[in-house]
């Protein structure tokens, strides 16, 4: 199958929430080389781009939708934007819902925009992640 504009509006909600742990935040901060003390300890907050990691379980569902026929190894990230309500903290249980917002085609390349809303266990909105990806369907 392939992806086209009729798939705009499809939503994917991760089956399980993501429990944000202190060590995961530290590991992520180390991986981006950021020594900021805000990202360490029991009261740590997550670095801003960690929001993308939290959107990944919903993206995985989008990638697994057989009607879209997407493959991770053919995807290149074109643009990314975040709107933050508050930082993600240790102990947050984060739910993610991704919605396809735009699909454009240029030959074998599909440009897909999707928006992921991150909410805490009690329904508080934490952040919105908007990603644009290019998917190349050409045989290589």
């Amino acid at each position, binding site marked *: 199958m392939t992806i086209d504009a009729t798939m705009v509006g499809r939503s994917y909600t991760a089956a399980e929430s993501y429990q944000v742990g202190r060590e*995961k935040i530290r*590991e*992520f901060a*180390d*991986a*981006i*080389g*950021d020594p*900021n003390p*805000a*990202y360490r300890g029991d009261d740590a*907050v997550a*670095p*801003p*781009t960690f929001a*993308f*990691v939290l959107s*990944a379980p919903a993206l995985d569902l989008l990638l697994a939708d057989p009607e879209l026929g997407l493959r*991770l*190894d*053919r*995807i*290149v*990230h*074109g*643009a*990314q*934007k*975040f*709107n*933050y309500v*508050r*930082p993600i903290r240790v102990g947050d249980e984060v739910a993610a819902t991704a919605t396809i917002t735009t699909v454009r085609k240029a030959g074998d390349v599909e440009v897909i925009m999707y928006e992921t809303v991150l909410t805490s266990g009690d329904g508080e909105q934490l952040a919105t992640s*908007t990603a644009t990806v290019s998917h*190349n369907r050409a045989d*290589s």
Partner: protein
Amino acid sequence: MTTIEAGTELPPLTVTIRREDLVRYAGASGDFNPIHWNDRMAIALGLPGVIAHGMLTMASAARVVTDWLQNPADLVEYGVRFTKPVVVPDDDKGATVTFSAKVDKVVDGSAEIDITAIFGDEKVLGRARAVVRVS
């Protein structure tokens, strides 16, 4: 913090990304796309070689702002376009990216900051912009 006004330049940041950093980021982020660790697959997809995760470059660019802010909670909006790939060679030298940032305008308690990321002679991020709360 000193006065924030249009034209204020933030302290720049230089980051070197090596293959091991891509492996570490892949593990920490869960993004195991092979274009970030496998030359064969990167080249098959038309890339010059293994490229850094755009999200890793974006994370480093954010540091210019969060280092300056001190409190990451003051970042309210942050967006970039990935305009050129950061090709990371399979050597010990890696790829060096230099980040700088400047306040574009201050309106109603918010500062809009433009961020520049240079790798070699080229900008690797386009329209990299952060909005932060300022008191």
